[in-house]
């Protein structure tokens, strides 16, 4: 019984570590190879906190038995969680700033390997290669939970099962909340979050912290249950195994991770029972082989993200017509004093890249409630101007005013919150997320995006989330695509994807919407639908400014146009006025 108890404990520990990593790897899309060392940081921290103080009666010189702070086990557990949380923040700071993708793997790998070295030499804390022993077990009343004795092993297995269920519930709750929606957006299209006025830094840091905090807590329980441990317990092989579990089970799906942990965790005892000692070399071959085969046959994992989406679909909401959506949305539309100042004023905007002048002093205004197009030959600086208005580039000179307020030089997030939202030439929608989630992420002021609200105000969070989803549905209904709300965006046609991106803009509540080539890449058959969508934004009272290369479409779409060449505004007026000027034609078509 105790033997099976120990196997169960091993699998449950692997499972908890993997589920928490899935939050980071699956939801936020950040691969960490340092999960094992963080598990170790928690274990050694807890051990030092819980071990008795060095006193005359407690002789620390007994080989391998250490001394510590003499805290109760629950305080040591909390301490371990806090310390690993902070350690993870240190690791993740460079990751949040600029280290991405493969470099993050290398960075976390460096922390893992460096951490192992530190553990091996820092004898005062880890006991060096001999490790720490004599760690007291958890005691509740007269019951003790540890793997030292048979009956308490079974008890610890049950305790570990409860803990694992809690970890799964926490990770599931976070992953499937509005906060999790931020993480998924971060994973798929990082640049989208700031463009809808949400900083990606806080959720990313928090996720690194939570993932590590859970690993630290599990590490503490591991320390209490084993009584003794060495740095070898926290090697790179465990980190790799954890990542393998997540990848095998399916990233972004907690249930996949459960299956993965049971398979990979269970393989070990099965092999040693059937093959015996010879199993050790085979184990690596089987792990490696299984991963290679999985990557080829089923790269999305055994139970991929969204595997249960179909079952959730059942709840069908009443379809809303575009007209009804229009009415409903116009009520929540933010309003300004009409006619007080132009929606957007750009004055003397300059930007050079090295010696190349991209924008050389552009000045123009965008009238409220109209569709204005920026046109001009290739290299006229249209997209650069967009980037300066939205804060992606800081202008070298000049000012940008939004309804009379100077917003020059503010960050992308701040400018978005002031009321300017933009779309991108290359749509940047999140293909693995549903249409509804793509739009819902842009709705401002969501209670569920804060962890404290998620934990302490679940009812309020749920209420706000219902309103958020309703809002997103209205935005979709305006463009006639609310029937696709539960589909994955990746399954839609390109024209519909463009509409989802425009609906996302609308959901931000911003007054000024900048559209970068809204019709490019759209099938000719669907172009009219996209143009119709842009006109509806205007009909809602939004101010639209767009870059569009096809003059033919600009003629049909825009009320006004600004003609740029080499970063200077040459003319402003209606589209027809502009195309009747011979100089502009010469510039556009050569002379």
């Amino acid at each position: 019984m105790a033997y099976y108890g120990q196997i169960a404990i091993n699998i449950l520990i692997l499972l908890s570590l993997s589920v928490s990593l899935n939050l980071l790897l699956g939801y936020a899309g950040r691969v960490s190879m340092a999960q094992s060392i963080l598990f170790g940081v928690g274990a050694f921290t807890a051990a030092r906190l819980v071990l008795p103080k060095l006193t005359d009666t407690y002789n620390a010189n007994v080989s391998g038995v250490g001394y510590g702070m003499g805290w109760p086990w629950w305080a040591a557990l909390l301490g371990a969680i806090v310390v690993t949380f902070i350690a993870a923040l240190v690791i993740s700071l460079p990751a949040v700033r600029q280290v991405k993708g493969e470099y993050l793997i290398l960075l976390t790998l460096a922390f893992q390997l460096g951490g192992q070295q530190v553990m091996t030499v820092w004898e005062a804390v880890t006991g060096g290669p001999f490790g720490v022993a004599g760690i007291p077990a958890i005691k509740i009343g007269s019951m003790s939970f540890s793997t030292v004795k048979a009956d308490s092993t079974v008890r610890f297995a049950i305790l570990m099962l409860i803990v694992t269920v809690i970890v799964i519930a926490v990770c599931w709750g976070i992953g499937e909340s509005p906060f999790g929606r931020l993480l998924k957006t971060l994973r798929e299209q990082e640049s989208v979050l700031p463009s809808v006025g949400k900083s990606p830094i806080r959720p990313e840091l928090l996720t690194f912290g939570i993932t590590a905090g859970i690993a630290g807590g599990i590490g503490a329980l591991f320390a209490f249950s084993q009584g003794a441990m060495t740095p070898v317990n926290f090697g790179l092989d465990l980190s790799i195994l954890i990542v393998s579990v997540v990848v095998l089970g399916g990233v972004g799906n907690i249930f996949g991770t459960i299956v993965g942990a049971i398979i990979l965790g269970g393989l070990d005892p099965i092999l040693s029972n059937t093959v015996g000692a010879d199993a050790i070399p085979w184990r690596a071959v089987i792990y490696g082989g299984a991963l290679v085969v999985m990557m080829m046959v089923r790269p999305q994992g055994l139970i991929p993200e969204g595997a249960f989406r179909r079952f959730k679909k059942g709840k069908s909401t009443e379809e809303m017509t575009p007209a009804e959506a229009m009415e409903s949305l116009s009520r929540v539309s933010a309003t300004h004093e009409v006619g007080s100042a132009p929606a957007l004023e750009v004055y003397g905007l300059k930007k050079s890249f090295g010696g190349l002048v991209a924008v050389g002093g552009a000045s123009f205004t965008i009238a409220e409630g109209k569709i204005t197009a920026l046109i001009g030959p290739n290299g006229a600086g249209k997209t650069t101007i967009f980037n300066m208005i939205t804060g992606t580039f800081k202008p070298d000179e000049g000012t940008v005013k939004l309804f009379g307020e100077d917003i020059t030089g503010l960050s992308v997030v701040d400018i978005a919150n002031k009321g300017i939202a933009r779309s991108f030439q290359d749509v940047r929608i999140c293909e693995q997320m549903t249409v509804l989630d793509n739009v819902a992420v842009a709705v401002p002021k969501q209670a569920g995006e804060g962890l404290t609200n998620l934990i302490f105000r679940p009812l309020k969070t749920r209420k706000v989330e219902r309103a958020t989803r309703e809002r997103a549905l209205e935005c979709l209904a305006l463009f006639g695509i609310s029937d696709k709300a539960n589909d994955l965006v990746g399954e839609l046609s390109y024209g519909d994807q463009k509409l989802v991106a425009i609906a996302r803009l609308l959901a931000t509540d911003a007054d000024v919407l900048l559209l970068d080539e809204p019709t490019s890449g759209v099938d000719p058959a669907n172009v009219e639908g996209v143009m119709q969508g842009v006109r509806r934004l205007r009909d809602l009272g939004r101010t639209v400014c767009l870059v569009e290369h096809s003059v033919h479409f600009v003629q049909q779409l825009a009320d006004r146009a600004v003609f740029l060449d080499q970063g200077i505004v040459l003319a402003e007026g209606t589209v027809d006025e502009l195309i009747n000027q011979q100089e502009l034609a010469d510039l556009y078509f050569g002379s």
Partner: protein
Amino acid sequence: MNSSDGNLLEVSDVTAGYNKRRVITGVSMNVKPGEIVGVLGHNGAGKTTLLKCIFRMLSIESGDIVFDGASIAKSSSVKTVASGMSFTPSERPIFRDLTVEQNLELGAHSVRDRQAIKDRMGEVMELFPILGERRTQLAGRFSGGQQRQLSVGMALMVQPKLMMLDEPSLGISPTVVTKTFATIRELAAEKGMSVLIVEQNVKAMTTIADRVYVLRHGEMVLEESGDAARERSEWWHLF
């Protein structure tokens, strides 16, 4: 062997794009032997994508492309070069860290005959004297116009039946544009070579083209003779 209707290149009803992003839709066009054909259109209209499809750098969703009498819809760019096509992209079409000679040799990568390479290099340098003068210099130090001449020279090294140029006027001064285009005109007449040029510079293109097409938003909206295009006073509605 040319196809029965005498076209060197025949693109019929081609649709292509990148993943879901549809860039050209149902495009048909052709190039006859010895003809200079221009494809005009706004930025993002699908001009470069069309060239990539013809050169077999991009797979096509539907339609067919026939070159020199054989379908190349499922071919590869390695084979299209061997069958007599060249393609000069618009951006950085040369190797900056190599000399003029090395660049030209690379242009002739698919040619086995050393003597032929030497002869052709001589021809190219005759055509563009500046390349002969600076034959041992690094191409990266050249002006935009000189780099453009070198890139055309590289394309000529395989003596293509069809030379495709993507925006040869990009980044070079108007006088150099006129000169380059005049040279292209001469070449086509002298060697009976067909040239397919993609351009945004309508005026430069119409001065040398036998025929022009206009792509708008991935669809062909115009085909007319070079003469008619030169007479045209209004282009806006086509862009």
